[in-house]
């Protein structure tokens, strides 16, 4: 809390909306109604006109479609597409009905526009008050060209952040909000709600979280396997990757570069290629079974993706193949950073290899790599590629929407793309996020790299 206050103080400014209301003169207050009025009357004509233009275009948008979009949001439409007999032409014509998907999308976009407009509105008030303040205190009032120039200097962040932010807002945040709002509707194949659907409140969450419903039961079993998978995939990758890195970094190991190259080469091959290859290799008639049969080690093909336990172990093991090189790559640099004095003094004290590993190497690595571990854990919970490309979630029990190796994400994919239960898919996406967010934020905020970001500069 104290930190937050300090941060606010760091960027404190006298030009706030509050101050504009309290201390603003007529022109400043006028700009609450007519944006940019304050700027124009105080002499910043171009800036004021820009604000005014934004207000006008927003109002035009609201009148032309925004208002309708907002008014349709509560009901999401009710009119079905119908065939209407056209007397004069003597044919059936299609009267266009409502499409809830589009209505919801337009509604969300309109809300976005309104929020953006409110922000611009606030900034216009602030800017008007700033102009008034500078004028009253006899300070120089920057003209338009000076404002533009300041974008390249003290306000460089505004110039540089705006294009990426527009991208993020419109192609990451807006879709996300759109998807989240779907979780509260009955947009699914069930009861044919694909064109017209309604708000249903928390109905879907109840369904997914209940222990009695079939979807609910599937959810808990998939969640269980997802967590088991994420723990094993992260933990084993970390341990084996670190052991490998330590072994390669040993003083006595020769041709270190060559060994590293061998392991790194496997990441260099695009993941979907190597996983698809793995999948075909592990088929009943694939290369691995053929090889083992030719060697006379087995008579029957091993059930890599048909037996539940085999399938689960297989995906974890193959994930080791995928993941260990990454750990190796990032652990190598950190291992070389461990101060050698630590090892030397441990040697003087007579510590053997195991003691030095558990008392020096491991604590140091854990300290530095906690953020890496958290992101890997999150990445594994969301590890779509490995599961989808390898086992596609199979083996799948008859009549179930999820297979035994399905993670929450692959199940989400199956629910939305294969089964068209868009609402349930959205609920599962949100729940996945909740699980991850709670865990990561709690741990991440405790790590040194977050608290002490500039410590090494």
């Amino acid at each position: 809390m104290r930190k937050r206050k300090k941060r606010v103080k760091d960027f404190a400014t006298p030009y706030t909306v509050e101050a504009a209301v309290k201390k603003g003169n007529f022109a400043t207050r006028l700009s609450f109604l007519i944006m940019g009025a304050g700027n124009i009357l105080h002499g910043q004509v171009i800036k004021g006109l820009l604000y005014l233009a934004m207000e006008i275009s927003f109002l035009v948008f609201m009148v032309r479609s925004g208002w309708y979009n907002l008014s349709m949001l509560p009901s999401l439409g009710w009119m079905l597409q119908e065939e209407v007999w056209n007397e004069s032409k003597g044919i059936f014509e299609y009267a266009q009905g409502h499409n809830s998907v589009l209505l919801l999308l337009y509604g969300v976009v309109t809300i976005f526009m309104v929020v953006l407009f409110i922000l611009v509105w606030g900034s216009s008030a602030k800017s008007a008050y700033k102009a008034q303040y500078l004028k009253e205190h006899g300070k120089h009032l920057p003209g338009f060209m000076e404002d533009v120039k300041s974008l390249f200097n003290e306000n460089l962040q505004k110039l540089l952040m705006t294009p990426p932010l527009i991208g993020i807002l419109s192609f990451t945040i807006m879709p996300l909000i759109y998807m989240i709002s779907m979780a509260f509707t009955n947009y699914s194949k069930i009861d044919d709600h694909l064109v017209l659907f309604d708000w249903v409140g928390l109905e879907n969450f109840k369904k997914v979280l209940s222990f009695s419903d079939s979807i609910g039961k599937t959810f808990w079993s998939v969640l269980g396997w997802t967590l088991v998978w994420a723990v094993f995939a992260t933990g084993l990758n970390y341990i084996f990757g670190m052991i490998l890195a330590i072994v390669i970094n040993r003083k006595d190991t020769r041709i270190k570069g060559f060994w590293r190259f061998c392991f790194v080469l496997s990441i260099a091959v695009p993941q979907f290629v190597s996983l698809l290859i793995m999948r075909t290799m592990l088929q009943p008639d694939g290369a691995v079974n053929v090889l083992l049969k030719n060697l006379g080690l087995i008579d029957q093909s091993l059930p890599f993706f048909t037996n539940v336990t085999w399938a689960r172990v297989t995906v974890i093991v193959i994930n080791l193949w995928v993941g260990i090189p990454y750990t190796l790559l990032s652990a190598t640099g950190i291992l070389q950073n461990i101060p050698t004095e630590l090892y030397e003094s441990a040697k003087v004290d007579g510590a053997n290899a195991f003691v030095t590993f558990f008392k020096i190497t491991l604590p140091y690595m854990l300290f530095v790599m906690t953020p890496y571990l958290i992101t890997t854990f999150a990445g594994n919970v969301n590890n779509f590629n490995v599961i989808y490309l390898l086992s596609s979630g199979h083996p799948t029990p008859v009549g179930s929407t999820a297979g035994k190796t399905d993670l929450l994400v692959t199940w989400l994919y199956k629910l939305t793309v294969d089964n068209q239960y868009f609402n349930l898919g959205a609920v599962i996406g949100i729940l996945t996020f909740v699980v991850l967010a709670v865990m990561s934020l709690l741990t991440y905020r405790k790590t040194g790299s977050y608290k002490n970001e500039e410590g090494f500069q």
Partner: protein
Amino acid sequence: MTANVKKQNTSAKTRRFITNCFVHAALAVLSVIWLFPIFWVVLTSFRAEKGSYQTTFFPKTYTLNNYIKLFSDRTILDFPQMFMNTLIVAIFSCLISTFFVLCVAYCMSRLRFKMRKPFMNLALILGMFPGFMCMMAVYYILKAIGLTEGSMIRVALVIVYSGGAGLTFYIAKGFFDTIPKAVDEAAFLDGATKWQVFTKITMPLSKPIVVYTILTAFIAPWVDFIFAKVICRADAKYYTVAIGLWRMLEKEYIDNWYTAFAAGAVCISIPIAIVFVATQRFYADGMSGAVKG
């Protein structure tokens, strides 16, 4: 030196020799396991027998026909067309996302403003949503602005690959963080603006990370197939390489195209592998840079 110490020395030496042998043998076995699938796909790409299932591990006869088929058989799965599509999309999305990433990374690393920490938290939070959860939503949005038909699909793909690029700034930020601030301050004393420092000082000093960002952004469209599948749907004319390769393994094509798939995999893996091996240093640096306590 007494005989006793000497004896101890030699026994320690033999023990170390045995450990070393063991370690190198283990590393050799592991490397073979790691390289086995790669070795196998290279073999398959030269295999003359068609079909995905075979009775021998090594091909009976070797041929170059798979590569020739891949680039000349344009009737069913038009690989050259897919290659061009991916190239176009990759070039544009690489330009846009490099620009976005470098801008955001520079702001996060060098400039101090009110929205900095909130933005970094936001990036962290957004990273936790399953990536394709909003894929369908992105599709609807692109459809609403008319980018999902005909040649606009390419524009849609560029947007999909570069739109959210501003959130992946962590590695570049880690690199910028390591450039001493004294360099900037010296330039400010000489009257440089922040923009000049960004373009004339930080950028030239950061050539490695710029190259790294360009390359990773360029590779993304070649290796992603989930987003591409959703955007392209059934419009085979605009398929990217990844969907093409994926389709070659579908039931109706696998018998004829399996070996060609291996050839295609080799073709796109070689350049990516070269790029990756050449830039892996930055990956490791970025990781350790981002987590430096």
